[in-house]
């Protein structure tokens, strides 16, 4: 049971971190509205799940909404700041977060909601591990997401251009890449990843105003894994999920919330650029 819950939590943490990393990689902007996007997407998923009985369809709708929201926020708010201090863009994301939080409270009144997920059975795996259908779906979705992102970065034109832009935006612009369009798409994907994470949180646990506390794990996972490393989110998420669950089970449950931050401090003390991050990223932070 413990192993299953660690793996599931790690998957969700990884996904939370990945949205943050995808956006940072492409635009060097720390998106501090990430936790609020997760909350908003979660509530939206709850409402849609009631309206549309089909989970897959409501999930798809949430992802599309998040993608468009990400692109719009980038195009309307962030892009005009290009050429100015990155700091102003980052502070802007804080403001966006506050705003989205207000929208969430206003529309959904901050109630605690669960996203209904029709299909519930249990699978027994060798080694006495039991996975519920929800956990099973969660792991499948996370794996699928990472596989898709890997293929996207590696094999699609936009993915390649995104990596090129991330490494050297000036050269990318000179080589005819529309760097703002590419960054906009990255913001869309990052927000969609947040939406996906919200959906998984909603079917596994619940959506509430406090979900922001879990979503803060996104920052921690991203920092530990390396801000510019999508792959780094996976080990980072496992480390955090495992220590957190083990502490809650065998030590004091009240320590659980502090664990991610303690690990973050320890990792950053020895590897300030994160587990798999690029070393030279440091002076840009």
């Amino acid at each position, binding site marked *: 049971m413990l192993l299953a819950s660690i793996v599931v939590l790690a998957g969700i943490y990884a996904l939370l971190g990945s949205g943050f990393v995808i956006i940072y990689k492409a635009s060097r902007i720390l998106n501090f509205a990430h936790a609020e996007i997760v909350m908003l997407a979660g509530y939206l998923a709850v409402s849609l799940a009631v309206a549309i009985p089909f989970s897959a369809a409501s999930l798809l709708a949430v992802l599309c909404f998040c993608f468009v929201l990400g692109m719009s926020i980038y195009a309307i708010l962030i892009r005009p700041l290009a*050429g100015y201090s990155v700091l102003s863009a980052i502070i802007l994301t804080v403001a966006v977060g506050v705003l989205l939080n207000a929208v969430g409270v206003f529309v959904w009144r901050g109630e605690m909601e669960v996203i209904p997920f029709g299909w519930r059975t249990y699978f027994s795996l060798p080694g006495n591990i039991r996975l519920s259908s929800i956990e099973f779906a969660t792991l499948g979705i996370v794996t699928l997401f990472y596989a898709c992102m890997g293929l996207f970065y590696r094999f699609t*034109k936009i993915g*390649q*251009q995104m*990596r*090129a832009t*991330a*490494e*050297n935006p*000036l*050269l*990318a*612009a*000179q*080589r*005819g*890449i*529309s*760097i703002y369009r590419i960054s906009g798409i990255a913001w869309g994907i990052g927000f969609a990843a947040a939406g996906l994470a919200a959906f998984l949180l909603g079917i596994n646990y619940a959506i509430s105003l406090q979900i922001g506390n879990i979503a803060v794990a996104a920052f921690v996972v991203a920092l530990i894994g390396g801000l510019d490393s999508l792959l780094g989110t996976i080990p980072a998420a496992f480390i955090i999920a495992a220590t957190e669950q083990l502490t809650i089970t065998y030590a004091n449950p009240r320590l659980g919330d502090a664990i991610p931050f303690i690990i973050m401090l320890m990792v950053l003390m020895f590897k300030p650029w994160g587990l798999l991050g690029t070393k030279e990223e440091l002076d840009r932070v």
Partner: protein
Amino acid sequence: MKSDSNKLLEVTKLEVVYNHVSTAIQGVSFNICEGQIFAIIGGNGAGKTTTLRAISGFLNSDNAVITDGEIKIRDRSINMLKPQDITRQTGIVLVPERNKVFETLTVQENLAVPTSIGKRAKETIQNIYTYFPSLYERRKSLAGLLSGGERQMLAIGQAMLCSPELLLIDELSLGLSPVMVEALFEILLKIKADFGLSILLVEQNAMEALSIAEYAAVMENGMIVLAGTPEKLMAHEDVKEFYLGIRGKEKKRYKDVKQYSRTRRWWG
């Protein structure tokens, strides 16, 4: 020099200032004709890179601005264009001095990045490989792992895929062995002939640059101090002395050269 009718690039009285205070280049004027190889030679800090970056729209990221003068390609002023528009709309393509390839992408991906998708793009990439066979052999490795020479080839290949009319190359010879420099210049000449390009070369290696250029300028302290055909420049006493290392009868030691007051004959 050819007549004015096929003038491709026209730079007039260009002035660039870094950080609002330090003037890097001043009153720089020159013309490049179609199909010409134009070389700018000059020592460290002369303002060669700054000139190229101004032409290719690369300046603003470095807190530098064009404070005076005009850059025109085919009679169209391009002072205000953004880098991505300059590549797309004018055919001016820069091979920069540093960070000239995407190091985290493979050779193949580097070449694919500027092109569109499809069969034609594949063919044009394949065509680039015919000029640089050694790149083809390393097409799957990361550009960050290439040697300096291979990197330079990749950068030129990538630039060629942006369909340039005027290729700007900043220090082709930087950090390369003489053999490699010679080979690269040879390939460049071939590319130029095949594609009907014009090339603006910026070089410290004056000997190599003057040997392939059709017209050249000497830059010092942000100004063009001498211009003319390579033959004329190579015959010039000061060019011989300072850039080609050919000295008169009394051989000077390095110490003496440093203390030698550089009376520039061309400044009168």
